[in-house]
């Protein structure tokens, strides 16, 4: 007999989206502003995050979750900032999912935090599909990666809220072409804010930290102590 076509209409990532929505509600209720970071491996997420945590720590209560395929090296590096840090070992999974965040938060009270940072696995493809309940998704691209990165990975740039161009101290050495990168970012994500930083020299970090605290205030969270 000939098969019948029946309509179903179900979002494939429905489960992840539901967990992410519940996380987002919980984060908002506790007044913590949540930022996730995505990039290729080696773009400088951990270095940038360590500097961010260290700079924020005198005035704000901060913590970080870090996803990694196998090692705990990133968590050890981030812990030097004195902030609470938890590693999520993803094993063979190349991205974080909302349920992994939920599990990692076990024993932590988000109500005791002003900022929570989540470093995703170094990967520009898979993390784009998974909402983690964050308020802000940062995509990092370093000056050494080539100005056409956004055109090669448009989805991750399109689903991010703010772009960080990292390793600006290396810009002269690699003849970094800022107008070209800016144009390519705007092509795949019109109107996205882009901030150029060097986590090594500190260039641009003030601009980033000011935007971050302003975003937290405008998200309705109470100002830090």
């Amino acid at each position: 007999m000939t098969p019948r076509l029946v309509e179903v209409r179900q979002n494939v990532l429905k489960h992840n989206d539901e967990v992410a929505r519940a996380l987002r509600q919980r984060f908002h209720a506790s007044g913590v502003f949540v930022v996730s970071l995505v990039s290729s491996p080696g773009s400088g997420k951990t270095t940038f995050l360590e500097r961010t945590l260290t700079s924020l720590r005198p005035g704000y209560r901060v913590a970080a979750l870090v996803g990694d395929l196998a090692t705990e090296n990133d968590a050890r590096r981030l812990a030097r900032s004195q902030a609470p840090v938890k590693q999520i070992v993803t094993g063979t999974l190349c991205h974080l999912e909302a349920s992994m965040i939920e599990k990692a938060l076990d024993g932590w009270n988000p109500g005791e935090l002003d900022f929570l940072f989540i470093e995703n696995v170094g990967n520009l493809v898979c993390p784009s599909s998974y909402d983690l309940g964050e308020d802000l998704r940062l995509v990092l691209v370093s000056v050494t990666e080539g100005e056409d990165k956004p055109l090669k990975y448009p989805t991750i740039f399109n689903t991010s809220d703010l772009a960080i161009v990292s390793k600006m101290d290396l810009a002269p050495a690699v003849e970094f072409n800022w107008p070209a990168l800016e144009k390519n970012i705007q092509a795949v994500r019109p109107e996205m804010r882009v901030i150029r930083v060097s986590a090594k020299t500190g260039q641009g970090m003030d601009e980033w930290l000011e935007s971050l605290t302003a975003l937290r205030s405008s998200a309705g969270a109470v100002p830090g102590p």
Partner: protein
Amino acid sequence: MHELSIAMNIVEIAESEAGRRNARIEAVHLRLGPLSGVVKDALLSAWELACENTVLAGSRLVVEDVPLVVYCPRCKAQRTLDSISFLCPECQSPTPDVVHGRELEVFALEVGDAA
């Protein structure tokens, strides 16, 4: 590569529908947008493996590409884009508002006789 885990999610959805309807599923129809983050060919290659040892074994995955549709604020109209470059094809304005293109959804099942 996360297409195998995506394929397994699709199998789970289809399996529960098959159970509910007490029917055999011959094909799963999926709508996939260019901003879904999922690569069609990789998903199709992962399908057979994802179906192994499930009631979906032997079924087909039919992928319908969803075009990228944006809203142009200047034309005040929806526009279809040929590539992931957010400029209105009519007036060249930037078009940040995505109307269609993020879809990753099971939208229909081809159902045969009860298994």
